[in-house]
């Protein structure tokens, strides 16, 4: 069935590379370019045409008022409230998990604070079964899709209910085939060329061709990796409906973006790959929704990659292992939270529409806090997975001899020392069945 698909879908000869016959009329032509020939020596250093930096698309101003001439995305009261509630959920989750980490109950956490509009706005504009490949600040996409707080907590605690990693990955490294959310890994940018492959596969599945895209998120720091170059190159050259969403939040841990690149952000790179590109105000949820919706449409219509650079600000620390006041002023962060807070901006818009008020706000905050605390308490009370899981899922099919033997060796050691060696003794008790599955 797939074999009979016309190969022209993929490589439309001449679509991009057609050499203009007019270009070379007077001065000859180049073998692999339609570049016009000129006799004036002129260097350039901009992609916006007029030499200015690439503009930022915005719909709502800082107080939630639509900009003159701006077109609002299709949004009704119910959708707007859902978007707002999910935006509010992220800092609630952050606050609890950040503190939980500080108490030593989970090993690590990366906050999502400041990027609520980018994450929730894009999630709302994607279809629920678009394949998502994230970096690690995109838990909000899963929550939008209905993944549930219990599952997020289970992964962060690595307890017996952690189906995302069976206790194997650090917190916030989620996976969910059911919600089309690919496994998060710590190495930065590796997901970018993978997204090209996922998108290409989507084109080859008849039921998803022209219907599903791969949405790939990464930060502006990750975009310095070679895999960024590889991924955008692959997705543009081997036409693949991949939507690349760069979260430019100004910092890669302590490195400000001014030390990350010298050009015009990430957006300026898109045209170099022949990719439709837009820069959007990442603190304006409506602008993000519009941009992602339109980008998604283009991905599907043209079967090619699209790049969005969302300008935002990382309000929280990089992670729980980071104290960001070592490299930026506390006042700067506080100012930013006040001046340009994506949540406040959208709340003001909701209020102006008569869709929200102080009472709703209070009810929401109470409910979210209660929900998060309930999920946290439940997750905390559950044991870790069965200890034998540490040897599972290395290979599919038959398990190699070395793993069988090493499991048996650990089993022997546990039998011999499990009740005597303190570092193990305490730990064994935290696993389901007290590790009997491995010891017996």
């Amino acid at each position, binding site marked *: 069935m797939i074999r009979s698909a016309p190969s022209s879908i993929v490589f439309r000869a001449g679509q991009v590379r057609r050499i203009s016959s007019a270009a070379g009329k007077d001065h000859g032509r180049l073998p692999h370019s339609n570049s016009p020939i000129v006799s004036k020596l002129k260097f350039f250093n901009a992609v916006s045409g007029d030499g200015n930096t690439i503009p930022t698309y915005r719909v709502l101003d800082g107080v939630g008022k639509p900009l003159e001439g701006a077109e609002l995305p299709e949004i009704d009261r119910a959708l707007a409230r859902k978007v707002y509630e999910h935006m509010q959920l992220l800092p609630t989750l952050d606050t609890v998990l950040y503190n939980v980490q500080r108490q030593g109950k989970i090993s690590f956490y990366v906050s999502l604070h400041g990027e609520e509009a980018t994450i929730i706005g894009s999630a709302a504009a994607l279809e629920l079964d678009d394949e998502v490949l994230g970096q690690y600040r995109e838990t909000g996409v899963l929550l939008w899709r209905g993944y549930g707080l219990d599952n997020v907590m289970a992964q962060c605690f690595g307890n017996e209910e952690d189906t995302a990693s*069976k206790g194997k990955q650090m917190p916030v490294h989620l996976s969910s085939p059911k919600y089309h959310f690919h496994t998060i890994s710590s190495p930065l940018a590796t997901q970018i060329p993978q997204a090209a492959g*996922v998108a290409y596969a989507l084109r080859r599945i008849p039921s998803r061709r022209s219907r599903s895209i791969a949405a790939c998120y990464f930060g502006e720091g990750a975009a310095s990796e070679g895999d960024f170059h590889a991924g955008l190159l692959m997705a543009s050259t081997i036409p693949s409906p991949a939507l690349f969403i760069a979260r430019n939040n100004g910092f890669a841990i302590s490195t400000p973006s001014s030390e990350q690149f010298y050009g015009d952000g990430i957006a300026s790179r898109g045209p170099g790959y022949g990719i439709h590109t837009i820069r959007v105000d990442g603190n304006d949820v409506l602008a993000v929704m519009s941009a992602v919706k339109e980008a998604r449409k283009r991905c599907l219509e043209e079967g090619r990659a699209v790049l969005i650079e969302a300008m935002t600000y990382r309000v929280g620390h990089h992670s729980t292992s980071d104290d960001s006041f070592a490299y930026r002023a506390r006042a700067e962060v506080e100012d930013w939270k006040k001046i340009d807070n994506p949540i406040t901006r959208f709340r003001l818009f909701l209020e102006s529409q008569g869709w929200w008020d102080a009472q709703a706000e209070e009810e929401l905050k109470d409910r979210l806090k209660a929900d998060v605390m309930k999920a946290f308490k439940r997750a905390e009370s559950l044991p870790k997975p069965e200890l034998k899981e540490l040897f599972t899922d290395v290979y599919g099919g038959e398990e190699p001899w070395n793993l069988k033997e090493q499991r048996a060796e650990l089993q022997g050691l546990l039998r011999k020392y499990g009740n005597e060696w303190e570092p193990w003794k305490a730990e064994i008790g935290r696993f389901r069945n007290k590790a009997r599955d491995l010891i017996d």
Partner: protein
Amino acid sequence: MNTYQAVRDAMSIALMKDDTAVVFGEDVAFGGVFRCTMGLAEEFGRERVFNTPLTEQGIAGFGIGMALMGHTAIAEIQFSDYIFPAFDQIVNEAAKVRYRSGGSYNVGGLTIRTPTMSVGHGGLYHSQSPEAFFMGAAGLKVVIPRSPIQAKGLLLGAIRDPNPVIFLEPKILYRSAVEQVPIDDFSLPLGSAETLAPGNDCTLLTWGTPVYHCETALHLLASPPPSLEKHIPTSLRSASIELIDLRSILPWDVQTVEESVKRTGRLVIVHEAGMTAGAGAEISAEIQKRCFLKLNAPVSRVTGWDLPVGLQFEKFIIPDALRIVDALVKTLSY
């Protein structure tokens, strides 16, 4: 068929029987720089057999992406010397996807084919044998065939294995090794060595191109030419040597090797890669542990020196038949 034709035949069968299978890499559309993909683009279309930009990390990442969707991705890295830009994608990503996602995702559909080992004039970057760099990457499989039949059967086995596989094709054998290859669909098992010649006095273990140097060495040992006669004691000429082709480097077939060494009491390991932390080191340590009381001589390793492959010096770098004979003589007379 020669080896490149056998490789092509395997991919043709894979493409024919599996609609999700695709073949891609640098220059594969016109047939590949070693002709391994000849005619596949014409037969199956450019949607299924296509060129990529020149980016190894991109090729590996793209293949992982397709495999994440359950598709069969057969990627080519033009020379195994150039697989290192993809090392991160292979070791940190492909190898670990199943484990880190608790089995909810896997990239079992990914096979990375790449030409390997020396070719006589490849210099530093067309000669390497990187298998040991991948030997510690739990979650990967690493396979090296020695001949056309092996190449076809093992490649089909690799493509269908539920794990990501690095398939290293000894490039000097693409044209030089020719044999009758069954044209039907068949797979050979991964993780299993093959005993090519039975013996009782010493086990000679190798893989890939050196299989042929080992065969030559066995002839030299049994009937040395006049020039070598004085170096090979008459008493050793009738020695019975067990020759084993390991075929899979990860996981490797410890059972076959252990059983053999327990019988012969001696082991010589031959590989082209350098000695330090080469695959021979791993095998040697494990066999020493398992066969300690049965060993009558130290485990010997005949390998490339711990050097890059200097172009004009290749004959003195790779482990050829003479060096293997010398090691056999020393091991047998220890």
